[in-house]
């Protein structure tokens, strides 16, 4: 049975199911209990699981992430709620120097099975410190797995996989999608890490979109279809591990690729994905792999400016048309 539920609800269900299944799982973060987080994602959990397992913290991000690392090392499976993705800077040491390296530094003796769930996404008029998409930072650090759900379906399936994973996993939800509904089975399911999702098959060009850029790519593909351009749309679903085989297969088929991600373009996610495709499918490509990311500026508050900074379906479609037309913008 499949019904439509919001991404919020999907995450909530995933956490609740896993907390029922495994009593070592607990949730910790700011205002996750009675308040259910500002996005109301965790509403109802404290009523079912009590304040011992749904733990409200002071505003101490490094502190409670560090505690989650220690709890995970000693038999708990914490899920940490980091209210805004922008706060990840505060917890980088505990996440990247401690959580990410403990298994390796201990030669495999210690494990850190924890999930850090946080969010990304601009255009909420929340300005430079509440709008960033910082997944590239953690994807760079060995020892962390990174998931980017693109709808309620992925949000649930990836979250459940993350909670059962024996490693630190960082999940970035798009905060603009919390109220978006998608079909989600009633029955239990998990989405394995490292399996990209081919959402639409096509022959002329491949559009790779992470998180909500999947929808941006899907909309672009629809527009392109009207022009007779057949676009394949792929959602990688996890950045670490990255399902290279699926991406390469598509690139070799269509010979043209655009990578779309809401992180800043410069030294970000699109560069890695584009490079891997260039490196490993080079002789199949008819055109350079193009990249669309958030503009390389801090996110501005003014709606008149903010809307200019994120990739749109129109921009993706326009880039696709120019690639397919063989326009060599940079050939000089």
């Amino acid at each position, binding site marked *: 049975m499949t019904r439509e539920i919001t991404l919020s609800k999907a995450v909530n269900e995933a956490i609740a199911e896993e907390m029922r299944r495994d009593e070592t799982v607990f949730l910790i973060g700011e205002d996750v209990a009675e*308040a259910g987080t500002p996005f109301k994602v965790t509403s109802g959990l404290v009523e079912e699981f009590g304040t011992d397992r749904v733990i409200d913290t002071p*505003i101490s991000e490094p502190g409670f992430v560090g505690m989650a690392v220690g709890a995970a090392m000693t038999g708990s499976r914490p899920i940490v709620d980091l209210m805004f993705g922008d706060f990840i800077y505060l917890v980088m040491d505990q996440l990247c120097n401690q959580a990410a390296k403990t298994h390796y530094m201990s030669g495999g003796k210690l494990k850190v099975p924890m999930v850090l769930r946080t969010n990304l996404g601009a255009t909420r008029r*929340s300005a430079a410190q*509440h709008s960033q998409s910082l997944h590239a930072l953690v994807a760079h650090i060995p020892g962390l797995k990174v998931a980017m759900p693109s709808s309620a379906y992925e949000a649930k399936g990836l979250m459940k996989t993350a909670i059962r994973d024996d490693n630190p996993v960082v999940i970035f939800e798009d905060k603009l999608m919390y109220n978006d509904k998608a079909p989600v089975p009633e029955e239990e399911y998990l989405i394995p890490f490292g399996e990209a999702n081919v959402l639409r098959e096509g022959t002329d060009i491949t559009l790779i979109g992470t998180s909500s850029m999947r929808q941006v790519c899907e909309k672009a593909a629809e527009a392109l279809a009207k022009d007779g351009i057949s676009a394949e749309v792929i959602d990688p679903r996890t950045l670490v591990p990255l399902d290279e085989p699926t991406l390469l297969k598509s690139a070799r088929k269509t010979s043209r690729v655009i990578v779309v991600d809401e992180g800043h373009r410069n030294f970000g996610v699109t560069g890695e994905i584009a490079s891997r495709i260039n490196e490993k499918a080079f002789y199949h490509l008819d055109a350079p792999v193009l990249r669309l990311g958030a503009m390389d500026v801090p996110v501005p*508050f003014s709606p008149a400016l903010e809307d*200019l900074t994120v990739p749109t379906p129109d921009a993706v479609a326009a880039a696709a048309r120019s690639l397919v037309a063989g326009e060599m913008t940079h050939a000089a």
Partner: protein
Amino acid sequence: MAADGSKHNTEDYLRMYRQMVRIRAFEDNANQLYLSAKMPGLTHMYSGQEAVAVGICEALTDDDRITSTHRGHGHCVAKGADFKAMFCELLGKAEGYCRGKGGSMHIADQSHGNLGANAIVGGSMGIATGAALTAKLQKTGHVAVCFFGDGATAQGLWYEVMNMAALWKLPVIYACENNGYSEYTKTEEIAAGSLTARAEAFGIEAHSVDGQDVLAVNELAQKLVARARKGEGPFFIELKTYRYHGHHVGDINRDYYRSKDEEAAWKTTRDPITNFGKWLEGQGIVTADELVEINNEIKADAEAAVAYAEAAAYPPGEEVDAHVFAGVDHALTYIDGAAK
């Protein structure tokens, strides 16, 4: 009220009163803009805490620096900002203090020494302390005041900078507005022990004061600012206060963490403006009619500024990559090496 009428002159009192009323008027309009969906994003109302910002900022000069918070309109007004440039900023207009790039959570007013609101709780504690370091190194005689909430005391950064401020005797005053809540959680659930003891443990002189009493706040601030200028700082002040609205403008149904009775009690018996107004009347400094006149005049000012801001222009699109780097007109060409 803590002070007696003779200590300050009438002008000072009236300015403090006016500044508190200006903050309230600003917030009433900001709230209205939000509720009528004219304001982008969301914002945190300062109403109820006016005596803190005014009592402290009245003890400062334009050259003294403050750092502010997500709940920052009050500090901004109290430090001398202009309604028009503030409302323009809240609406993302080009004439805003930050050309629309900052908005409510990042409003800064360099001309009056406001180094800016901050959307990272506790994020400005280093900045304020660093401003005090400049003051000490360059012997400017200026003081820095760091405003933050009770919730921010849970951030480790505070302890790091208090330690250095104490070791180096920096002219900084940490002003903690304890409004009883951090978001949807009561302070006692997130703060163990005692806030003043935390500062004292670093050898920092700590005070606790009624944050609804503008004269008490101002008197203490005057003293500590003067002493900080002489190198006797740093200091810590805990100001007991209350926010009238929800955590942010969208936090409407809040009975689950805070009762309507509690809110009503603060508003009716502890309002900093009403009580100071009554005291001014009692001292014979103003009449009730004069107070009404002040209130109306400020209300009209605020409304005019809102109208101005609503009509003002957005920044042009080409500004989107300006101001990323000082000295660089357009960051996008610059980072690709085209502008060298």
